[in-house]
C-alpha cells in the first residue's frame, strides 16, 4: 500500500506539472495584440502654428457623439484660464501658454492620446481591451473592458479617463485616432477641421521628415526637439514647439518604452511556465523526501 501510494504521488506530481506547462503556455502567449506596422500613420502637431480656435475640440465631440455647445461658443477664450485635461466630456483639449518672447503670440497646445508605438495601456490591460491597430491607432473595446483602470495607472501621458459618475457601464474614454473614420479613408475629425493646418496627418516617417525640414528652415522658430520621436519608444502623434516642452506641461520622459521592464519580468517569471513548473516539481520532491525521512524514523507514539 505504501509503495502504491508513493508511486501515485510521483505520478500525480509529474502529470500536474506537465499539464501546467502544456495547457497554459501555448494559449497564454499566443494571444498577442495586433502589432503596429513598421510605419504607422501619425499626426504632427505644430504648436507654433496653432491659433487656439478649439474647433478641433468641437469636431472631435461631433465625431464621437459627445454633447457639445454650438461651434461659435468655442471662440470664447476664457476656457484658457485654467489648465485643462481631456476627459469623457472632451477627448481632446487645447491649452494656451504665454510666449515669453512675443506676448501677442501665445502658444496653443492640443492634447490627446499620443498613440504610442509601444503603448503602456495595451501592455497593462488585464483583458486586452486596449489594442494597437495596424495603422497606429490605440483603441479601446467596450465589450471587453472591466473598468479596472490599470491602463490609467500605466499611461505615461495620463490620457485614459474613466466615467466615475456612472454606477453602471462606465467607459474608459480617450482619443481613438478616429479609427472609425480613417477606416473609411476619412481624415481624423480634428485634422479635417483645423483652419491653419496646425495638425498634419500622414505616415509617421514622412511626418518626421517634415518636422526636421521645418526645424532646419526656421531654426529661430523651433526648439530642436520633436516630442514623440523617441519618447517612450516613439509615438504616432508628435509635436513641434517654440519653447521647452516641459514649459508646455509635457512630462519629462525617457526613451525607454514604458512596458519594457514590466513585460520582461512577466515573461521571465513565466517563460512558458517552466519556472512555476520547476518550483512545483522541486516542492514535490522535498515533500516526498521529508515524508520518507519521517517514515523511516521509528514512530514515537
Amino acid at each position, binding site marked *: 500500500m505504501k509503495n502504491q501510494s*508513493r508511486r501515485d504521488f510521483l505520478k500525480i506530481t509529474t502529470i500536474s506539472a506537465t499539464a501546467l506547462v502544456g495547457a497554459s503556455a501555448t494559449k497564454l502567449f499566443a494571444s498577442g495584440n495586433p502589432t503596429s506596422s513598421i510605419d504607422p500613420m501619425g499626426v504632427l502637431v505644430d504648436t507654433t502654428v496653432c491659433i487656439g480656435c478649439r474647433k478641433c475640440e468641437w469636431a472631435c465631440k461631433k465625431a464621437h457623439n459627445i454633447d457639445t455647445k454650438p461651434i461659435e461658443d468655442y471662440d470664447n477664450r476664457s476656457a484658457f484660464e485654467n489648465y485643462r485635461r481631456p476627459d469623457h466630456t472632451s477627448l481632446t483639449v487645447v491649452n494656451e501658454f504665454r510666449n515669453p518672447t512675443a506676448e501677442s503670440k501665445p502658444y496653443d497646445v492640443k492634447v490627446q492620446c499620443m498613440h504610442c508605438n509601444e503603448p503602456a495601456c495595451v501592455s497593462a490591460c488585464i*483583458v486586452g481591451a486596449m489594442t494597437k491597430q495596424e495603422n497606429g491607432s490605440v483603441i479601446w473595446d467596450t465589450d471587453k473592458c*472591466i473598468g479596472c483602470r490599470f491602463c490609467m*495607472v500605466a499611461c505615461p501621458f495620463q490620457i485614459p479617463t474613466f466615467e466615475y459618475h456612472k454606477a453602471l457601464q462606465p467607459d474608459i474614454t480617450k482619443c481613438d485616432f478616429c479609427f472609425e473614420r480613417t477606416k473609411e479613408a476619412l481624415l481624423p475629425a480634428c485634422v479635417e477641421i483645423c483652419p491653419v493646418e496646425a495638425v498634419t496627418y500622414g505616415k509617421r516617417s514622412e511626418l518626421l521628415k517634415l518636422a526636421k525640414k521645418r526645424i532646419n528652415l526656421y531654426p529661430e522658430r523651433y526648439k530642436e526637439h520633436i516630442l514623440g520621436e523617441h519618447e517612450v519608444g516613439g509615438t504616432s502623434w508628435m509635436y513641434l514647439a517654440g519653447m521647452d516642452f516641459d514649459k508646455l506641461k509635457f512630462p519629462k520622459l525617457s526613451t525607454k518604452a514604458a*512596458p519594457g*521592464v514590466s513585460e520582461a519580468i512577466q515573461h521571465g517569471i513565466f517563460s512558458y511556465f517552466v519556472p512555476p513548473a520547476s518550483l512545483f516539481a522541486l516542492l514535490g520532491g*522535498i*515533500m516526498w523526501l521529508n515524508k520518507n525521512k519521517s517514515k523511516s524514523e521509528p514512530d514515537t507514539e
Partner: protein
Amino acid sequence: MSILLPKPMKYKFFTPGVIVITIFALVGIAFVLGRFVFGIGAITNLDNQYPWGIWIGLDVALGVALAAGGFTTAALAHIFHKEEYETIVRPALLTALLGYTFAAASVSIDIGRWYYIWHALIYWNGNSALFEVGICVMMYLTVLYIEFLPIVTERFIGHVNLPGILSKLNNVIDKGLRILDRTLSKFMFVFIITGVVLSCLHQSSLGTLMIIAGDKMHPLWQTPILPLLYLVSAIGVGFPMVMFESVISSRAFRLKPETHILEKLSEMMPPLLGVFIIIRSVDILIREAYVYLAEFSSVSIMFSIELIVGFVLPLRLFMSKEVRKSPNMLFIASSLVIFGVFMNRFNTFITAYTPPYADYSYFPSIGEISVTLGFVALEVLLYRAFVMIFPVISVPTEEKSAKTKYAIRGILR
C-alpha cells in the same frame, strides 16, 4: 497525557467588543451599497489623476500579503514536514481563506464594471501583470477552499443529523462525506504544492503591477526588483500574522498561548527580515536612490518609517531571546512587521504614485476608509464564527485515541 487537537470553540458569539466590530462591518457594507447605487466617484476620492486608491493598495495588495501565512505554514508543516507546526496550519489557512475572499471582494467593488469580472477568465493578456495576479488569485482561492474542505468533512462525519423527514438522508450524506474525505486526502498534496507555487507567483506579481507606472513612481519605490521585494516581505509577514492571531485568539478564547510554537516561529524571523532589509538597501544603493533621503520631505519620512519602524526595529526585537520567550513582546514585534508591510504597500501604491498632471495629493475618503475597515471587521467576525463552528483552533484534549486520522491532512500515510 493531553495532546493538542483542533476543536470548535464554545463561547458566546457576541461580546461588547464583537458588537463594536459589527457596527464597523455594517457601516462598511452601507458604503459598499452606496458604491453600487451611485458609482465609484460618489464614494471614493478616486479620479482621473489617481485611478487606484486604498481599495487596491491596502485591501488587495496588503490583504494578500497578510494572508501569506496560509502558504508559508502549509509549506512548513506539509512540504518540509515539520509536524510540530500542525496546530497553526488551520488558523493560518482560515486567515488566508478569509483574506483572499475579501481581496477578491475588494477587486469586485473597485472595478467599474464588476459584472464583467469573469472577462479576466476568457480574454487573456499574458503581458499584463494584473492578469497574472487575477488568474493566480482566483486559482489560489479555489485551492484554499479545497484545502479547507477536510475541516468541514471532519466536523460533520458521524454528526450528520438532519431533522424530520430529511433524516432519511443522514446515512447517504455521511457516506458521501466519507468518500469525499478519502478522495481529498489522496490528492491533497497536489493542492498544497499548487497553493505554494501560486502564492509565490502572485505575491511577486503584485509587486510587478506598479512597475509599468514608470516615472510616475518615486524612485525610492520604483525598482525592477519590486516583485522580489514583495515576495520576500510576504513570506516575512506570514509568520508574524500567525503569531499576532495566535496571541489574540488565545486571549479571546482564554487558552494558554502556544509559547513553544511561537518561539520556534520567531526564530525564523531575523533571517527573513534581514534578507528583506539587505535586498532593499542594496537596491537603493545601486540605483543611487538614497539621494532622495537627504532631503526632508514627506516621502523620505514615509520611507524611513517603513524601513526602520516596520523592519529594522522588529528585527532587533526578534533577535532577543527574552522577546522570543514572551508572548506579549512577540505580539508587539509581530505588530511592527505587519505595520512595516502595511507601510510598504501603502507607500508603493499611494505615497510613491505622482501622476504628471496631479494638482493635489490623493487621500482616501471616509467612504473608502469605512469600506476597508468594514471588510477587516467582517473578516474578524467570520473568523470568530468559523472557529466556533469548525475545528480550527487546537486545544489540549484528554483523548486516548492519540492522533486521529485528521491530525495531518493530505499526506501519504
